[in-house]
């Protein structure tokens, strides 16, 4: 092979690699998510959580933060949840009582996604674009309830999730995503909080969800 043809081949490979759409590689994947580790994109977003019950519907606000080094924080009126991939902990902050519960999750036995019940694995059913991001919609059903999870492929972020059970539905929507590094102080326990440590509870099996949602377990009052 001549030097020029060898150069042409190398150039063609480089161009092909540079223009290849990673998403096309994952067309057969369960939710069509990218295979590149995109979680390392720092961002924050507003959250709106909506609850629907036979007694009415209401929404609560929240905020989501993610740092480049694998820390996440989700704020809601109940408090904050800080997830630290590197330290293997989840910290639940109760701002009302100024309590921090640190749950050690690393090393805990957990259901394997590969061994999971097929019905529990979300299956892609549509693609769309939301706020300029390509989004894959996936759904699953178990125990009389249905569930949808929409993932922004380029961000590695679930931008919408919904659990729809008899007499109870919860949707969580992320909006106004900003690509920026959050303040590192957001991922620390504030001063003055009482800190407790505990291990993660025993994990339910993958088949746990087929038992159904507890929304119809309430006792019936005597009239």
């Amino acid at each position: 092979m001549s030097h020029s043809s060898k150069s042409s081949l190398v150039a063609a490979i480089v161009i092909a690699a540079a223009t290849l759409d990673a998403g096309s590689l994952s067309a057969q994947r369960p939710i069509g998510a990218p295979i590149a580790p995109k979680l390392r994109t720092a961002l924050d977003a507003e959250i709106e959580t909506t609850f629907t019950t036979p007694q009415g519907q209401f929404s609560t606000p929240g905020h989501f933060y993610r740092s480049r080094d694998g820390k996440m924080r989700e704020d809601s009126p109940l408090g904050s949840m800080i997830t630290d991939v590197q330290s293997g902990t989840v910290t639940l902050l109760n701002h009302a009582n100024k309590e921090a519960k640190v749950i050690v999750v690393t090393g805990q036995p957990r259901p394997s996604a590969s061994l999971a019940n097929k019905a529990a694995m979300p299956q892609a059913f549509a693609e769309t674009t939301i706020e300029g991001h390509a989004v894959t919609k996936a759904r699953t059903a178990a125990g009389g309830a249905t569930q949808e999870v929409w993932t922004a492929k380029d961000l590695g972020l679930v931008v919408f999730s919904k659990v729809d059970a008899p007499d109870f539905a919860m949707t969580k929507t992320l909006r106004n995503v900003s690509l920026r590094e959050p303040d590192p102080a957001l991922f620390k326990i504030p001063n003055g909080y009482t800190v407790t440590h505990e291990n993660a509870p025993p994990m339910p099996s993958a088949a746990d969800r087929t038992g159904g949602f507890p929304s119809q377990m309430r006792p019936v009052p005597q009239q």
Partner: protein
Amino acid sequence: MKVIRNWTRVCAWSLVAVLCVMRPATVKAADVTVLVNGSFNAYPPWMDDWSPEFSAIAGTFGYPPIQFRWFDNNAVFPPFYSGIFNGGFALASFLNGVGGDNLNVIAHSHGGNVMKFASYFLGRPIRHLIHLGTPVNWDLYQFGGYAYSFCQISSYADYTQFGGASPYQVYNFGYEQAVAAQMFWNAGEAAFNGDWDSFAYYMAAGAWHEAEANFWWLSTKIEWGANNFMFGGESHGDLHEPPVWYAIRNSCAFN
């Protein structure tokens, strides 16, 4: 005779005049509205004569409410809830004897559960029953709590209301919240390592358990047979303050 006739006419017209100018509130004076305290304090400031909340309620009904206080209000914990049962007996006795036409009851916190138990022994109907931040406790669910108009006022962020629920509800919330946290951590780790199949699975599992946790959280706030009002960031004490009262009175007191 003519003088007597004239006096009769004067009296009749005077009565008509009085009836014409009489305020509707005076007409309702035969109704009774009772305030019931919550746990740990039989004399909470919101129930004081002419406190802001007392005044707001008096202004709504057109006459001042009266206060019922139950004093065994530290004994509100499972498994016996003895203070709630003792308070319920006393409240039932009070309400059966208080008289009046329409009877309205406005109860804060566990005072609502005292009222639930009291309603089991009531010999008269309740016109308006309003629970302000009452924990919906499944241990106490079998006891009444009924009225022609029943409103349950809650705040999503109220931990005190949650803490007054049954151990079963509280445990299930804590367990599902911890499982959801673990699942979200699993998802984060999977995505951090580029394992998107696992990410998808764990995110879906996390969302499911997060929804279950929220179901248990809301089970302590939503009253099945009532007209429910859910506020966002209010504290337990905010629920017995005038802004909340003015927000709910059209649906809960004027109906």
